[in-house]
C-alpha cells in the first residue's frame, strides 16, 4: 500500500470538502412540500455512549431526501453565496450549525420507488441502491401526541429489530431513514431494545430545494457496505495501519479504540 503522510490526508479531506462546497457541484432534483426534522438518538451498548443527530426529511413530488439537518443549513448558505466557499469557511459553517461529521444519508425516487443510501468508510464514500423496502406493519389502535400531532401506533419487524412507530394524519407514506409505508407520515419510531429512536421535533411546510452533491461515490451493495462500515467502526486502525505516517516518515501510532457504532440494520 502506498505510504502517505498526514498533511496529504488533510489535503485529501480538503479536496472532498471543496468539492462539496462549490455551488456548481450541487444538483437540484426537486422542491420539498413538507419537511420534518427528526432527532435520531443512538445508543452504543459496547461503549455505553449515546449520540444524537438532527436529521431532516424533505418530501417532494418526485424525490424525498433524509440527511443531516446541519448539511441542509450549510448547503442553503452555499446556494445563497455566489462565490465558491473556502474549506476553512466551510469548517466554520459546520461548527456553527453543529455538523456531526459524515452521517449516512438517503435519497428516494418516489416515482420509481428506488432508494439510494450514501455512507462512508474512512475517507471513501459509497452508495447502494435498493427497492424501497416493504415493511409489514401491524396497525394498532393506541394513540399518542408526538410533536403536537395525534399519532397512531404501528409495529413491525424489520431487518433484525422490532420497531414501534407512530404515524400522523399528514397524508404521505414517508418517515425517517427507510421507514415508510404507513397511511401517514411517521413522526416517531424506536426499536424495542431502546438503541435507536427517531422522533420529530419540527414539522413544517417545505419550500426548499431537494439537492444532491455531485460527488463520485463508489457503487456497492447493502450487505457489502454495511459490513465494511461495521468492520471499520469496530477496528478503525486496521483501515489506516501503515497508511498514515508522521512528517518524519515513521508510522503514526493509531489509537486502537472502537468507534461509536450501532447499525440500524442487523440483517
Amino acid at each position, binding site marked *: 500500500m502506498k505510504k502517505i503522510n498526514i498533511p496529504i490526508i488533510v489535503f485529501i479531506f480538503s479536496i472532498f470538502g471543496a468539492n462539496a462546497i462549490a455551488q456548481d457541484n450541487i444538483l437540484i432534483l426537486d422542491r420539498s412540500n413538507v419537511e420534518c426534522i427528526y432527532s435520531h438518538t443512538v445508543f452504543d451498548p459496547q461503549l455505553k455512549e449515546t449520540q444524537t443527530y438532527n436529521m431532516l426529511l424533505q418530501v417532494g413530488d418526485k424525490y424525498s431526501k433524509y440527511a443531516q439537518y446541519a448539511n441542509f443549513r450549510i448547503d442553503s448558505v452555499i446556494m445563497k453565496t455566489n462565490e465558491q466557499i473556502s474549506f476553512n469557511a466551510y469548517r466554520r459553517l459546520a461548527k456553527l450549525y453543529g455538523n456531526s461529521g459524515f452521517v449516512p444519508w438517503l435519497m428516494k425516487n418516489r416515482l420509481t420507488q428506488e432508494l439510494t443510501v450514501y455512507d462512508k468508510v474512512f475517507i471513501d464514500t459509497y452508495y447502494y441502491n435498493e427497492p424501497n423496502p416493504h415493511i409489514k406493519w401491524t396497525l394498532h389502535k393506541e394513540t399518542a401526541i408526538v410533536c403536537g400531532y395525534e399519532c397512531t401506533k404501528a409495529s413491525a419487524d424489520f431487518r433484525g429489530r422490532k420497531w414501534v412507530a407512530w404515524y400522523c*394524519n399528514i397524508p404521505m407514506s414517508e418517515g425517517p431513514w427507510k421507514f415508510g409505508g404507513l397511511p401517514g407520515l411517521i413522526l416517531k419510531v424506536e426499536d424495542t431494545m431502546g438503541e435507536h429512536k427517531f422522533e420529530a421535533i419540527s414539522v413544517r411546510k417545505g419550500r426548499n430545494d431537494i439537492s444532491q452533491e455531485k460527488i463520485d461515490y463508489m457503487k456497492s451493495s447493502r450487505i457489502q457496505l454495511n459490513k465494511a462500515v461495521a468492520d471499520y467502526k469496530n477496528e478503525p486502525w486496521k483501515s489506516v495501519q501503515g497508511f498514515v505516517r508522521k512528517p518524519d516518515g515513521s508510522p503514526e501510532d493509531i489509537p486502537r479504540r472502537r468507534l461509536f457504532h450501532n447499525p440500524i440494520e442487523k440483517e
Partner: protein
Amino acid sequence: MKRFVIAAMMTMTVLIVSARVSLWGKVTTVDGEPIIGVVVKVFASNGDLIAYGTTQSTGDYKIDLGSESVEVMVSFTGMSYKEKEIVVTDFSTPVNITMHEAPFQLKEVTIKTPPVRTLGDTIVYAVDAFRKASDQTIEDVIKQLPGIIVADNGRIMYNGEPINKFYIEGLDLLSGRYALATKNISPTDVQSVSVYENHQPKRVLQEVEISEKAAINLTLKKKRMLRPIGNVTGGVGRGNVEVGWKSELFSMLVSPDNQTLISAKANNCGTNYAQETQSLVMGGNAIETEVYKLFPLKPLGVANLPPNRYEGNTSVLTSVNSIFKLKDTLTLNVVADYTKEDSDYRNSSEIEYFGADGKGSLTVFEKDVSHLSRHGFNVRLKVENNASALFYQDELKISGQFNNNDYLIDRAPLMSQTLRNKDVSVSNRFNFALKHDNRLWEFASDISVASTPVNCVSVGMLDSDSLEVLQTSAGFAFVTHERTALSWLLRKYSTFGVRLDFKSRYDRIDSEAVAKVLAMPSINSISGYKIETTAVPYYQYKKGRVTWRTEVPIKMYNMRYDDAIDDTIYNYNRPAIEWNTSFTYRFPNNLVGILKLAQSQLLGDISNFVTHPIAVSYKQWIVPGSQLLSKRASKHVTLSMNYRNALVGFFWFSRLLYGMTENNVLNRSEVGQLQLVQMYQNYRNKSRVSIIETTASKSFYDIHTMVSLSGNVQLNKRHTRRDDETYDVNVAIYEISGDISSSLLNKQLELSAECRYMRSVQDLGFGSTAIDEVSAAFNVSVFPFKWLEIYAKSSLKVSELAVDVTTRNFFLDGGLRLSRGRFDVGLSVTNITNRRSYSYRRFIEYDTYTYNFCLRPIEAIASVRYNF
C-alpha cells in the same frame, strides 16, 4: 381417487383465491394527470381502518382487502388535494377518482426541542423545556437544570465545583461577574444553556492542562440578537415605615462582533444589587491590603436570612459592559461598575463564652442599631487573543471600596461605634502562551498596588461623651507575580513541563490604638517583603480513559520585615518541597473518578509580626502575630466521583476528603464583660478534618419535575486556647437537604418545596452541645390564565435557642403578575404574617451566639415592567 383429490384441491384453491377481494383503480387530477403518493385508506362500517395503500407513479393503486367485504368507506388524501371519501360496495370494477387541488392545511408548526442533548463533554439544555411560567430570569431556569446548583449570591456550581467561565454566545463579556447576566436576562430570550465540562478557557492549553471545572454558555434566540433587548421597571409601594420604590433598567445588545450589557438600578425595597458586580470565579477579585482584611464589615452579627428580610436599605447599581470582537480570536473587553448601598438593621445578641468547667464562663448581652454606607467602583479593560497556537491577555483593573458603618450599642452604658475604611487598588495582569510543534511556552506577569489610606474605628460613651477607643490604621501593598512555563509533548500521551513562579509582595501596616483600657497607645509600624520563588516540574499522562498528573513544587521563601516600634528585623530564608498528584479515570458509562493526594506548606506573612493589639470593634481586640513565622503543613487525600446521564436527567456527585494539618501557632482568646482579645501563641498542634458529601438530582422530563437530594457530614478535630487552658475540640456538622419542583396541569400550576436539616455538635472535652436547625419552604404559582400569575411563597425556620426551647419563624410572601404584550404589571406583598423578629443560635469559634434580628414589616409594592 388420485384424480379426484387433485380436482378437489384445485377447486378449493380457486374458491380461496376468488374469496380474496381487492380494491383498485386510478387517481388523477381534473386534467387527467396521474397523482403519485395519494394515501388510500379503507375503513370498515364500524370505522376501523382495515387496509391502506398509496398510488404509484401512474396514479394506480391496488389494495388487498383480505376477505370478502360488503361495504367499505374509502378515503383519498394527498398533499395539495382536497380529501375525497366514497363508499364502495362493488369490488369488481376499478374505483377511479378525480381529485381537486386544494392547499393542504398543515397544522401550525410545532417544534419540540429535546430538553437535553449531549455532544462529548458538552451538555445542551433547551431553555423552553425547563422554563416555568413563573421564571423571571435565566437564573431561575439554571437552578432547575439537573447537576447544577446556584448559591444565594449567584455562584453556579457544577459537580460541586464553581464554574470557571460564563459565556454569552461564546464571548466572556462579564469577566466573572456573571450575576449581572443571570439575574437580569429573561429566559424567553435564551435558546439554550450549554455546560462545557472540563473546560480549559485557554485554547492553547486544551489537551495540555486539564481543567476539572466546567463553563456555561448562553445561546440567545436568533430573533433576540442584533437588537437591544431588556426591560424597564418602575414600582412604588408602602410599608409601615416609608414609601417603597424601585426603578430598574436592563439592556443588552448581542451581535456576532459586539456585545453590550447595561444595567442601572435603584430601590429601597430590600434588594441588594452589589452582589451582581462581584466576581464569582476564582481570582477575579482585586487584591486588598492586610489592614483592610483585618476589619470585618459587620462585626456584630449577620442573620442567616436573606438581607431583604431585615435590612432597611437603599441600593444603587450602574454597570456598563462591552466586548468587541476585533478579529476571529481577538477581543477587547471594557467594564465599569458603580454600586452604592445604605443599610440599616437592628439586632440583639446573647453570647455565651465557654469556660474551663464546660459551662458558660461568661454571658454577655448586647443590643445594637447600625447604619452601613458603602460605595464601590470597578473599571476593567482587557485585550485577549485566544487562538489555538497563541494566547495573550492584558487586563488593567482599578477598583475601590469605601465603607462607613455607624453603630449605636446598648450595653449599659450606651455606646457609639464607627467603622470607616477605604481600599483602592490598581492592577495589571498579562498572560501569554505560545504553542509551537511539541513545545508550549507560557509567561504571565501580574502587578498590583493596593492602598488603605485610612481605616478607623472609634468608640464613644454617649452618656459621658467620652472617647473609649480610637483605632486608626493604614496599609499599603505592592504585589507582583511572574510566571513562565515550558512544556514538551512527549510522544502522544505524555507531557512534561516546568512552571516557574516568582511572587513578591511588599506590605506596610501602620496602626495606632488609643483606649481607656490601655495604659499607653498600642502602635504597630511594620513593613517588609515576602518573595516566593517556585519551580514546579510536572508530568502528565493522558491516554484514553486515564489522566494522571503529578507536580512537585520546590519553593524558596525569602522574607524580611522591619518592626519600627520594637526596632526588630525579622529575616527568614526557608526552602519547602511540596507534592500533589491526581489520578482521573473515566469509566465507560459517564462515571468519572478522581483521586487526589497532596502535601503542602503554607508560611505566614507580615501579620505574624503585628504584635500589638488592634481594636476591630468596641469589644474585640486582635493581636494577629506572635513574633513567630507561622507554618501550616497539610496532607490531604480526596476521592470524588461523579456520574451523569443527561438524557435521563440524572446527576450524582460525591466527595470524600481527609486532611491533616500541623501548625506551629495556636489561636488563643481571653474574654471579659467588655472585651474579647484574640491572639496567637507559639504552640505546636495538629488538626484533622473529614468531609463526606453527596448530591444527586433527577429530572423527570415527561412530568416537568426535578428532585434533588444532598447530604454532608463534616468532622473537625482541633485545639484552641481560652485564657491559659488548652482544649481539644471536636466539631461535627451534619446536613441533609432535599427539594422538588414541578410544573403541572399543562403549566397552570407550579409547585416547589425544599427542606433542610442541620445539626452542629461541639465537644470541648466535657460533654457535647448540639444545635439543631430545620428549614422548609413551599412555593406555589397558579396560572388561571396564561397572562395571570398568582403566587405565594412560604418558609419556615425552626431554630433551637436553648435545650428544649425552639422558635418557629414562619414567613409568607405573595402577589400577582399580569402579562399583557410587552408589559408586566405586578403587585407583591412581603412578610404577610408581619413577623417582626427572628432568632437563631450558632457556634462561632466554639462560643455560642444567640441572635435576635428585627425584621422589615409587611410591605406591598406595585410595579410595571416593559420588556423590549
